[in-house]
């Protein structure tokens, strides 16, 4: 349980960090909160030559507002994001999901950007980014680009970043007035990855759905959305829908797998119940 040897650098600017990544393409790994990478190093499942620690870069920390979005710096700690007033006011879906992320102790170091960049299919934050329509800000020596979360996740732990790109922030757009958000998951123990997880943003005006976003984690190779179900809800009266039917349709758009934690059939069954329970609770309290 000891990491193999590596070189370590802790640049104090984004420029220095991306220079370092460009000089060590394929050999370097970025160390953010380390709550996933450190176990992978200890188990020797990852053996980078160079570790680029971005924790000392002040520009990557904290939460700011601008252009109708909430911008969360990549190394903002999950514990800080969980209690951040700006996030709570403008993107309340994020703290709802963060409650389920890891443990109290790991949220104290784990970062928002690290989890979103990693793209564990059963993790909460990648699905939060996908469902809430976030943009991932990526920087390299070639410049900065924004990647839509829906284009970001290509497979388990596989994303659209070039090997020398660094996630510098995640931007969550303001949701329309009248949007309610919810997050719920079922895991074997608190802190475990979800067997089934759901994140929704439902925009309701005058008792009618104007927009719906339904995101799942633990239900496929990447976080995913039930796009047809989302479209089918638009224009429907909230009081007129049969939640059991909607849940069945939403789950039919997922692609869960059998593994040693749960069967795909179990995940589908639980997914429908999670959907019915979480959505009905959210609609009642809205």
């Amino acid at each position: 349980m000891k990491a193999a040897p590596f070189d370590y650098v802790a640049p104090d600017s984004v420029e220095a960090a991306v220079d370092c990544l460009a000089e060590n393409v394929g050999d370097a790994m970025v160390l953010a909160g380390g709550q996933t990478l450190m176990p992978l190093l200890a188990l020797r499942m990852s053996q980078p030559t160079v570790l680029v620690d971005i924790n000392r870069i002040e520009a990557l920390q904290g939460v700011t507002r601008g252009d109708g979005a909430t911008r969360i710096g990549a190394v903002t700690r999950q514990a800080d994001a969980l209690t951040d007033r700006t996030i709570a006011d403008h993107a309340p879906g994020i703290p709802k999901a963060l409650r389920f992320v890891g443990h109290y102790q790991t949220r104290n170091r784990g970062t928002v950007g690290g989890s979103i960049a990693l793209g564990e299919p059963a993790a909460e934050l990648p699905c939060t980014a996908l469902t809430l329509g976030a943009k991932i800000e990526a920087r390299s020596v070639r410049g900065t680009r924004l990647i839509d979360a829906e284009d970001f996740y290509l497979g388990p732990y596989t994303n659209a970043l070039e090997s020398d790109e660094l996630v510098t922030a995640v931007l969550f757009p303001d949701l329309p007035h009248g949007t309610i958000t919810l997050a719920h998951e079922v895991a074997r123990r608190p802190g475990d990855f979800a067997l089934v997880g759901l994140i929704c943003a439902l925009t309701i005006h005058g008792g009618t759905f104007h927009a719906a976003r339904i995101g799942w984690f633990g239900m496929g190779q990447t976080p995913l959305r039930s796009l047809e179900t989302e479209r089918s809800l638009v224009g429907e009266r909230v009081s007129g829908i049969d939640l059991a039917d909607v849940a069945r349709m939403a789950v039919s758009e997922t692609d869960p797998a059998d593994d040693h934690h749960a069967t795909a059939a179990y995940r589908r069954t639980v997914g429908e119940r999670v959907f019915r329970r979480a959505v009905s609770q959210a609609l009642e309290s809205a």
Partner: protein
Amino acid sequence: MSEHRIELTVDGEQIAATVEARTSLGDFLREECGRTGVHLGCEHGVCGACTVIVDGRAVRSCLMLAVQADGVQVTTAQGLAAPDGALSPVQQAMHDEYALQCGFCTPGVVMTLTALTAGEARPTEAEVRAALSGHLCRCTGYQGMLRVARRLSGANG
């Protein structure tokens, strides 16, 4: 393989050392600082036994590199008691409530409860349960730890 000079404060003691990049904070505390009260169980972030307080926050010392601790303040279970040996409130409550048996998970639990109840913090039962879920105790169980937290939060005496 790079080596790095670090300076940090461990349990109030100024420490300067040269560390290999790959050395975890937990290994450093045990092997270079004599803090064998930091118990390394799984060494990959699951068991919680190695939890220490870094700059006021409970973190897993196996999931942080020693080199990352340059400039920080670390508190381990060995830094809690007063110089005359008087136990800290959490330690005393752990003793009074029979909240340990074999003792392996205990230092980590003590550090989490210390961080959770520091200052004026009065965590709710749900918050305590959630925080304790980050620790594996496989002998006496969690009821005693919950009594400790209730006592320190002023709930149920």
